[in-house]
């Protein structure tokens, strides 16, 4: 008991910026910022304070591990003589401060794809290895949140190095990993009372997530549904844009492009979306997923069946961003319920 108490700290809200200033000496701190009345995770500048009053960021912080545009390699010279220039640049360690448990879960989902015994994506691994996660409990889960469907919850500390709970005028800070514990050593000690406060806030939060879809049987259910006409119904209003995939913390499809200006060039990875028609367009002109329902089916099957079959985990963390931002209000929770009732 004493040991676990040793890693409980707390900090008054008005002392937070001092703490962050200390962190910024050794780390780049990326935290929620208010951008035109919505929140994005961005690098904190100078004495800036993180905007911690937020529910969740508009875009997930996956871009800090899997950037939307990322250089694979640079090169120069003429086409028939080019060689890749591989430079290993030193990177400054980073802290993602204030990451919600759903987004933290998404990282452990992406880990299984990008870093496995088949091949290791060095770019992802490097960013992952050089980043510490300061998780932040959700005292007020959104109406559209359903993280509890996925072995997680508004106060799940899984995957974090440090976990922060907002308890009114203080932040309760728990060290989860050794690295995390070291960073909070110098903060004020906490006590059992703080843990109790945290569990009260946690209970209230859990109670507010009233109807999360039950996804346990979904992967199995989906196995027999490939030819089912339900996909045409679900996808009829889909516009075929990429909002759901780009905002989703677990979507990982990317494109590889070459860009050359004069004599210098680079090969880049760019986010791509299976919802775009040209995603699977063959050079020969053959198009296996010509219709929207085929692409919608691919997206849902991939997240809730194929990924589970390959990596033993569903590729969704219940953050609800696709629900709030879809221009035509396609609701994945509704889709999951429809599937489970088939």
């Amino acid at each position, binding site marked *: 008991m004493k040991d676990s108490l040793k890693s409980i700290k707390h900090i008054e809200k008005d002392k937070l910026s001092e703490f962050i200033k200390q962190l910024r000496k050794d780390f780049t701190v990326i935290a929620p910022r208010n951008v035109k*009345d919505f929140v994005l995770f961005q690098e904190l500048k100078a004495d800036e304070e993180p905007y911690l009053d937020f*529910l969740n960021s*508009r875009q997930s912080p996956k871009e800090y591990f899997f950037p*939307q545009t990322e250089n694979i390699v640079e090169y120069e010279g003429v086409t028939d003589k080019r060689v890749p220039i591989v430079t290993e640049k030193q990177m400054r360690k980073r802290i993602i401060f204030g990451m919600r448990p759903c987004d933290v879960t998404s990282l452990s989902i992406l880990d299984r794809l990008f870093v496995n015994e088949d091949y290791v994506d060095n770019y992802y691994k490097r960013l992952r290895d050089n980043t510490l996660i300061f998780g932040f409990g959700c005292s007020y889960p959104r109406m559209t949140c359903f993280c509890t469907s996925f072995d997680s919850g508004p106060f799940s500390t899984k995957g974090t190095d440090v976990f922060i709970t907002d308890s009114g005028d203080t932040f309760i800070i728990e060290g989860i990993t050794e690295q995390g514990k070291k960073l909070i050593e110098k903060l004020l000690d906490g006590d059992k009372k703080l843990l109790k406060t945290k569990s009260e806030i946690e209970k209230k939060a859990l109670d507010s997530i009233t109807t999360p879809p039950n996804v346990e049987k979904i992967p199995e259910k989906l196995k027999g549904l490939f030819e089912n006409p339900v996909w045409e119904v679900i996808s009829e209003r889909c516009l075929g844009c990429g909002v759901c995939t780009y905002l989703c913390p677990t979507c990982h499809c990317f494109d590889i492009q070459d860009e050359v200006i004069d004599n210098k060039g680079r090969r880049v990875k760019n986010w791509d979306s299976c919802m775009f028609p040209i995603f699977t367009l063959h050079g020969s002109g053959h198009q296996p997923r010509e219709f929207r329902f085929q692409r919608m089916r691919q997206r849902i099957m991939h997240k809730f069946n194929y990924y589970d079959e390959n990596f033993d985990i569903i590729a969704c963390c219940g953050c609800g961003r696709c629900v709030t931002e879809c221009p*035509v*209000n396609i609701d994945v929770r509704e889709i999951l319920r429809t599937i489970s009732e088939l």
Partner: protein
Amino acid sequence: MEKIEEKIREIAGKLLKDKKVKLIIGFEKGTLPLKARPTFVRKPEEVEKLIWNPFCENNLAVYIPFYRRYLDNGESIGVIAKGCDVRSLVLHIQENIAKREQIFIIGIPCEGILDRKRIEKEAFPGEITEASEKDDKILVKGNGFEKTLKKKDFLCEDCIVCSHRKPVVYDELVEGDVKETEAADRQNQIKEFESKEPDERWKIFTEEVSRCIRCYACRNACPACYCKECFVDCSKPQWLGTTVDSETDLQLFQIIRTFHLAGRCVNCGSCNRACPMDINISLLVNKLSVDAKRLFNYETGIDVNEKPVLNKYSEDDSNEGFFEEH
């Protein structure tokens, strides 16, 4: 509102019973407080889900190009269309996407669509968990807050200066009286931006566009964007880079799309509402609409027998911008 909904269901039910159309595109209740969403009814009993309210923010004409297989078969499609939707449908007819007799327009005189994003900001950083509208007010509730807002204070920018709230063409018109605004109002609306120095305008534009994540929600929500191969997807030649770390690529995407909409945009504002990064997408194209009116006395999507403005030429067309006299 209820009267309009009843009328919509009545008209739609009859159309489907008489098998005059294969499909009717309308709106149904969404799963979020401030949202109505597109829906598709094919059987008379399904019309009960059709609704109409100021949250019906999508331009339903965007779905017409998806139903080529019905149209090619000679079938008809019904659309529950507000003022701007109707004009988009007219544009489709002008551009031969569909024949007039194949689109059954159920016209709704529209009082304007509510700007969901602006309403949501009233609750920021919290969220709105309940919303209802009655007469000229909207009641929003969230976690520990409740507010009554005046509808007219939260209309979409484009709706405030809409010049064709009443459908310009229809097969059936649902009754309702709406006041049209003067087209000049749009000119007033852009005046502030227009009067700024070019450098400042560029700064405002580039700052907006710097948030773009190339999700193409704006393009896909736009009824005028229906090209089978969009210029951004073309690789031979690669007109535009696909990365987001090139400011030029982000700016060019918006600028080129804007010019592809010259004389074709009906200023419905769907692009702005679809953008997940809250970018003012229609900032530039609004000016092109004003120019079309000023230079060629042209408004998009009014007459099914007309041609789009850039498809015709007359000798007394304005030469402004082409031949400047110094």
